[in-house]
Structures are given as structure tokens and as C-alpha cells.
């Protein structure tokens, strides 16, 4: 038994859910509080609860909407707005294909923007300040997602060479799935984007691949098959990461293709795969996520991971530990499939009392602790039940309980959520593709500073809002000429 407040917080949320509508009171109260850890846990818990009981969470969001105001976060109502925005965005970007989510989200924000703040009326008292809030909530967050400071030097994009800038801008239109990546020039540009040192270039390259792979998996696989032999290890990594799309209806054909790409990464580009060369994997380990998502959606085991894990346990503990750590983000989406894959490693917990820090089992046990701690941030009870079931020793349970690591979950929920949403919007909604996705990349491609981007992108979003009379449902219309 331990006294860790994380457990207490989760129990409080569970009790609130049991109380039904009255339990919303707790979240209403917390949304206005300045308690970062509790707010973070509440948002993750609410997201997970939403998967089970949508009406509770939608009802809470409706109630919060009446309290949220475009005010600075030092004011309670400003904090409520941020809480609501985070929750709404997390649900929306991770489930943009869900009709009810789209309907409830647009209704919610229509209510806030039009009925509460009356932004569509010229004399709205909030109209003057909305530009600042769009900048803070939408533009800055978009910039943070396109140009993730934790992953790369954020200044690089603003200092890029003219030819780099030109290449970036001429590739942006390819996010339209109706375009073709036929010419040699385009393929070379795509290769250059994937191998670029500038993070947004790699993200754009990956996004183009994902959008085309959703729209036409066979053709995209063929194009990529031709490109693979000439890609560097970083290029191959990003071409693989491109498929990290949580949308539930991605083609099953991705499984075989990603097994091949992941296997190539492990066998032929070991240093990159092991994150020995720096790069994204050192900070956000998603090399196994694309295949893990494809496996999870198919629902029939994770064959390659099991094979690699077996090989690693037999004679390559570093590889085994690497695979286990790489499964953390997969476990965020498919916890049970990951538990099944990890189950064979449970003995590492029990036979790891020799004190030999460098022993294979110790490495595997450490990796398991990291992965289960990361998954626990979202799947709190499920991880604890798994530990109970495999009879993990108390010392291990204490260690996992104390290792609070919400980073993987929040990065998956936001970064991958935005990426997921960008793929979905680009494939399905031309107005959003042009007004949000293309607008964001063009604003970034033309920017020489963060301010350039936020001004340009905020203006684009504001224009989109005005053009659609602050009626978000209109963003989903498909113009007749398209």
C-alpha cells in the first residue's frame, strides 16, 4: 500500500462518475481551479470515461460552456475555458470521424461563439479580444504541434534557405488527396522533406503520405516501395511514422506494409531504431506505433512485436527493452493487445532480485516499468489490474505507482490527435483542408518568425469563422465545384 495522491485523484473521479449528474459538480469546480496535476488527471480520466459514458462528458461540457469566458487564465472563468477547450479538442481530434462527436462539438462551439459570446454580431463585446484568444488557443497550439519545440530546434523553420522554403510551399498542395505524386520531382521533394533536419518539413512529408495512403493505399504503397531503397534511415523512419493514424477505418493492407517497413528499420537501421542517433525517437518513441495501431485495429495479435520480443529475450536484451518501451504509445490506444504481448516478460519482475543492474532481466524489468507507467496515465485501473494478475511484486507496483509519466499520453492525445485530424480533414472536408491545414502550412512556410505565423494563421482562421458566420457545421460542407 502506498499513499500516492494520483490514486486518490482517480478514486475521486470514479466516485464522481458514480454520483451521476451530481458528480459533474466536482469537475465544474476543478475546471476553475489552479491545480495543474489534478486538472491533467481529470482531463485524461474524462477522456477515458467519455469512451464509456459519452452523455456524462458531453453534459459536463455543455455545463462548462455556460461558465467559460475568453478571459486570461488567472481568472477562474478563463481557466474553465481552457479546461473545456482541451477536453473538447482532445475528443474531437482523436475521433473526427465520429458523427456524434462532430455534431456535439460543433453545437457546443456554436453555442459558445454565437449564443454566449455573440461573436457573429458586430457589437459583441468579445469580438475585440477574440483575435488574442484565437492566437493563444488555436494558432499557438497549431504552431506548437507543427514545430514541436521538445523535438527539434524551433527556429530552423524560420531560418530555412529559399530553396527549402520553395520546396516546402510547393509540396503543401499535395495534402489534397485528389493530387498525384507522379513526377520524379515530386518524389525527390518528398524524399527531401522526409530526410530534412527541419521538423515541419518531415511532418508535411509524413502527412502527404498518410493522406494518400488513406485515400489510395495500393498506389501509395507502390510509390513508397519505389522510394524506400533510396531513403536514408531517417527518411525510412519518417515514412513509417507517417502511418501513425489512429482513425479506426484505415486500410487493413497497412499491416503487411508496416510489418515490412518496421522490420527493415529494426534489422537494417538498428542505430536509428535504437534511438542512438538522436531524432524524434529519443524524445517521442513512436517507431512501433504505426504498426501497433494497424495491429490493434485488426485485433488479431501483434506478430512482429512478439517475434522481436522473443528474439530479444533470448539473446538481445537491449532489443527486448527497446521493443517494450516502444509499445508504450501503442498501449495508449490498445492496452489489452499490449498486455498480451508483454505478458511473456512478466517473469522479469519476479526473477529480478539479484541486484545485477546490467542483467538482461533488469533491463527488461526497467523497460516494463517505464511502459506500464506511461500507459497507466490513461489506463489507470487496467494497468493495476494487469499488475495484480501477473502478480507483480509490491516493489514493482510501488515503482510504477510513483513514476508519474503523463507525457506519452498527452503527446499522443494532442500531437497525434492533431495529425490524425489533419489527415481526416484533408481527406474528407475541403473547407477545413483549405482553411485550416493548407492555411497552416502555408503560413508556416512563409513565416520568418513565430509572430508571422500566428498573425497569418489567426487571420486565416478568423476569416474562415467569419466566412461561415461562426457556424462550425458549415466547415463540413463539400462545395459543389469540388
Amino acid at each position, binding site marked *: 500500500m502506498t499513499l500516492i495522491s494520483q490514486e486518490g485523484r482517480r478514486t*475521486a473521479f470514479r466516485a464522481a462518475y458514480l454520483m451521476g449528474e451530481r458528480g459533474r459538480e466536482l469537475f465544474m469546480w476543478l475546471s476553475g481551479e489552479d491545480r495543474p496535476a489534478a486538472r491533467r488527471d481529470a482531463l485524461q480520466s474524462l477522456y477515458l470515461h467519455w469512451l464509456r459514458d459519452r452523455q456524462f462528458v458531453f453534459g459536463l461540457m455543455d455545463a462548462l460552456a455556460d461558465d467559460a469566458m475568453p478571459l486570461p487564465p488567472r481568472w477562474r472563468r478563463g481557466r474553465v475555458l481552457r479546461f473545456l477547450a482541451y477536453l473538447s479538442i482532445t475528443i474531437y481530434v482523436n475521433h473526427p470521424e465520429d458523427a456524434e462527436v462532430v455534431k456535439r462539438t460543433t453545437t457546443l462551439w456554436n453555442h459558445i461563439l454565437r449564443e454566449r459570446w455573440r461573436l457573429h454580431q458586430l457589437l459583441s463585446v468579445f469580438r475585440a479580444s477574440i483575435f488574442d484568444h484565437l492566437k493563444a488557443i488555436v494558432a499557438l497550439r497549431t504552431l506548437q504541434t507543427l514545430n514541436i519545440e521538445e523535438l527539434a530546434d524551433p527556429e530552423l523553420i524560420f531560418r530555412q534557405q529559399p530553396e527549402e522554403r520553395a520546396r516546402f510551399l510547393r509540396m503543401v498542395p499535395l495534402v489534397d488527396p485528389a493530387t498525384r505524386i507522379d513526377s520524379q520531382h515530386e518524389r525527390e521533394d518528398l524524399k527531401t522533406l522526409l530526410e530534412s533536419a527541419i521538423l515541419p518539413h518531415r511532418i508535411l512529408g509524413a502527412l502527404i503520405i498518410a493522406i494518400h495512403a488513406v485515400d489510395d493505399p495500393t498506389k501509395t504503397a507502390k510509390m513508397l516501395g519505389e522510394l524506400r531503397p533510396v531513403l536514408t534511415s531517417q527518411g525510412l523512419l519518417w515514412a513509417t511514422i507517417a502511418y501513425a493514424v489512429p482513425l479506426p477505418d484505415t486500410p487493413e493492407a497497412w499491416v503487411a506494409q508496416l510489418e515490412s517497413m518496421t522490420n527493415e528499420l529494426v534489422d537494417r537501421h538498428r542505430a536509428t531504431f535504437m534511438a542512438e542517433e538522436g531524432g524524434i525517437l529519443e524524445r517521442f518513441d513512436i517507431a512501433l506505433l504505426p504498426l501497433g495501431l494497424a495491429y490493434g485495429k485488426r485485433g488479431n495479435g501483434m506478430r512482429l512485436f512478439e517475434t522481436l520480443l522473443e528474439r530479444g529475450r533470448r539473446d538481445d536484451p537491449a532489443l527486448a527493452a527497446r521493443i517494450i518501451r516502444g509499445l508504450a504509445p501503442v498501449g495508449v490506444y490498445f492496452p489489452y493487445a499490449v498486455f498480451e504481448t508483454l505478458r511473456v516478460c512478466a517473469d522479469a519482475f519476479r526473477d529480478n532480485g539479484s541486484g545485477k543492474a546490467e542483467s538482461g532481466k533488469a533491463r527488461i524489468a526497467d523497460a516494463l516499468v517505464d511502459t506500464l507507467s506511461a500507459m497507466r496515465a490513461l489506463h489507470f485501473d487496467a494497468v493495476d489490474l494487469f499488475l495484480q494478475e501477473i502478480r507483480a511484486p509490491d516493489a514493482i507496483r510501488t515503482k510504477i505507482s510513483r513514476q508519474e509519466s503523463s507525457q506519452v499520453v498527452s503527446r499522443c492525445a494532442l500531437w497525434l490527435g492533431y495529425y490524425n485530424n489533419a489527415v481526416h480533414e484533408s481527406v474528407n472536408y475541403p473547407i477545413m483542408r483549405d482553411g485550416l491545414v493548407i492555411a497552416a502550412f502555408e503560413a508556416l512556410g512563409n513565416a520568418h518568425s513565430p509572430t508571422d505565423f500566428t498573425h497569418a494563421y489567426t487571420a486565416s482562421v478568423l476569416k474562415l469563422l467569419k466566412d461561415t458566420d461562426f457556424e462550425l457545421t458549415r466547415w463540413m460542407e463539400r462545395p459543389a465545384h469540388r
Partner: protein
Amino acid sequence: MLLLAEPGWGKSSLCAWMIGQGRQPATLAEQGRRAQIMNAWSASYLCSTTSGSTINPTTFSRSIAEQLASRFADFAAALVRRAAPGQYNASITANEISGQAIGINIATQQIIVEAANARDVYEHAVRLPLVDVVAARPAGGRIFILVDGIDDALLFGRNNIVDLLLASGDFPDRVRFFLTSRREDRVRLAFPPSEHVRVVFVSDDTWRDENDKDVSAYIEWRANEPEIQAWLASTGLERAAFVKQLVDHAAGNLLFIRFVLDNPPRAGAVGVAVPTGLQAAYDGFLARIFPGVGAGPDPTWTDTGKPVLGALTVAVPAAPDDALPQWLGPSRIDQALQTVGQLTEWINDADGGSRRLYHRSLGDFLSTQRVQSTDKEPLGNRFFVDPRMQHKTITDYYFAAIKDQWDNDWHECDRYGLRQLVPHMYALHALTTVKSERVGVAERICDLALNEKFQEAQREKLGDGTATIEAIRLALDVCVETGDAASIRRRAHRVAESWEPQMRAFAAQAIADLHTRDPKAALDELKALLS
């Protein structure tokens, strides 16, 4: 359908037979008929207080869900969608989902267990998937679920299996439950007859002919045993007349006739040598061993038979050989077992060998203060063993031992005590009528269940947290019932910070229960947990 019958009618035997356990029918035709019945069940579950875990509603839900999932691919798909929403593609087809991965998940109970609260487990793993399956194919084949002994399930306390089944009353015709129970008022009140609930009292006169046929067949099956043959000879009756007299005497109760034939009189007419009814049979048998009981104090009964049979009446699932002399004092045991050994059976278990009563109905008889006599007037039971005192004897032993013998080290306690001490105290609490005493017992339960040293010993000696989790459930249950808001908050707060998800679920439930009484206190506690 709810099947009600008196103890000994053979409900559990019938259920066991219907699901393929027990004796194989003699003829091929009968074997075929039983196979047909056996295959008709989509899921089955047998509750028994002698096996504590079977009355656990979570175990029940898991078992039913596993059986349904392994039998119906569409249920497996619905289960995954409901129990692990968003974590599998909802568009996965039934054929795909019945593949290896899901099979493993279900076999290891991962998906089903995720909801640590018993009601949630049932809701997401059984009820909602069944609703989905039926909604998708209302005209599909019938889904029959058998649950035996739901009266035993009532002993679990709140949110028991009966409560869960009550939530299933709205199923359409495609889903049918077959429930059995003794004539327990709480069960009858829970399932009153209606257009959805058919109640059958099988030990009523309506079914007498059918019951008599079964009893007659059983007697015929055993009639060639030498002792019974000798008895038959002493009566001077034809075999058919002898059997008929026994059948009439049995009044449809199979256990009664089994008991009589297991302990046949050496001689005498059936009407004289055999008492009427199971309770009378037990009374008669005990009177032969302890002839002085009822006429005045009988030290053989009070000093030997009563303590041992009393302890066996309340021990769950049985009294360990090593523990029994500790509870009662070693001098009583050997002599007692020599005299009442026939009424008990020895089992080889994890405690190194234990002893229990041969049938639950004997425990029911011993713990019944007033028994029905032939002229329907209740009479005092001369062999009554007050269950409250039996629980108290056992709990007193452990509390004395921890202080006087074990120097406050719970590691010295035997496995039975670590596992069952809190459940015995819980039963003691339930049987205590004086309010101040109840509160005192409740406090002791909470203090013990939450005692870290006790929990540590439980985990170390029992190998996992199951007993601790159950102890916490019972402790919070009595705390919510008898405690004030401050006490509930204090206990729930401690449990809330456990790493066992089931315990956290109990704490959450306790706070939610407090909310119905004192919303402000509950909300204050929730805020305190976030601080």
C-alpha cells in the same frame, strides 16, 4: 424462470446434472436427452456459500461473459465494444473477433475486469453486450443462462448476484434465465411472478407425483444394499410396499431419503423408525448420539458435539484440521469427531486438510432456533447452535492470539484467519442486534481490515491481494452502514489511495453512498482527494 424448493429437494443436483456434471445416464437414449439439455445452456453458474468466491458478483459476471463470448461470436464482438470501447475497431466482424487475440484477452479476464466495480463489470461485460446482440438479431436462437443457488448469493451483501440479475429483467424473449433458490423471502420479493417471471415451487404438492417418481427411482437404485435389505426384511413388507412407504415419508425430498438410506435403522416399520422431514431426520439422528439433549443438560453435547458442529456450521468453506483445535481447545475435537464424524466430510485443501458438514442443510438445521414440527407448530430446536456465538468463538480466538501468543505479528496467524477473520466479524456484525455492540464490531472490522501489518501478512502468506480486497469491501460496507460522515471519509480516504483498483472502486462507492446521505461531506472528500 425461478425454481424454488426446500433444502434437499435436489436443486443443485438437478442443475449439475443439466450442465453435464454428476452421474452419466445409463441408457444411450437418456444420454442423448441429457446432452441435448446440456447443449441448450449458453452459460451456467453455480453459487455456493461453501465456496466463497462463487458468490462474488465479479466472478459471476466474468464467468458468464467468458462462456457467452466463447459460444457466440457476436457476443464476443459486442463485449469488446462495450467492455473496451475505442480500444478495438468497432467495425471488426464477429468472425475476426473470435480469433486468438480476443480469446486470450477473455481467457485472461483482462477486458472484463477493467471495471473494478461489480455492477460495472456486469453492465459492460454481460448486460449491454447481450442487449446489443439481441437488438442486432431479435429473431436469433434463444440464449439460456442457468444460475443455481441465488439465495446463497445474498450472503455477499450489497451489489450481489441477485441485484445484478434484477437489472436483467428487461431482456426480450431471446434471453432466458433459469434461476434456482430455496424458499427465501428476499428472493421471492426480488422476483415476483409477472409476465416476465415464472415462479415454480417444485416442492409443492402440484409437483408431488413427479418428485415421488424421482425419489422412488433413487430408493430402487439403492435398495439392494445389504443394510437396507436387512431393514426391509425386518419390516416384513414386500419391496414395493416398503419403497412406497419410504417415498410417502420422503415427501419429495431427495436429500432426506439419501440421509435415511445412508443411516438406515437396523429394524422397525418405516413410520416408526424414520422421522418425517429432513429436519426431523437430523434431529432424530442427533438424538440417537446425544440422547440426553432436551431432557436436561448433556455435557457430551454441550462440551463436544455442539462446539464442533457449531464451528463447522460457520466455517467457510471448511474448518482446517490445524485451526479447529485452536478455536475450541484440543480436548474436544477427537471425541467430538468420533461421535459426529458421519455428519462431516474431510477435504484435502490448501490449508492442509479441512472438515465440513456433509450438506449445507445440516448447517441450516443447526442454526435454526425454531424448527417446524409435524403438526406445523414451530418448536425449539434442542440442537440449536447460535451462529453468532460460533462466529464470536472463532474471532475471539484470533484476537486473543494476536495479543497473547503472536506479539502483534499477524505473520504468525494461520492462513484461515488471515483469509476469514474479517468475514467472520462481518457475519458477527450482521447477527448482532444491540446497536452499540454493532458499532463496536464495525469499528474493529475497519481497524483490522485497514491494518497495514494485517494486510501485509495476508499478501505474504496467501500469495495475493484477494483476501485483503474482500476484507476492505466488507469493512467499507459496515462503515457506510454504521459510521458517521467523518468516519466514512477517513476510511474511504485511506482506501482511495490503494494501488488495488478494486479497493479504489469500493472507496469510490463508499463516497458515492455518503453522497446520498450527506452531499456536502462527500463533495468535500472528493476535493480533499484532489488536494
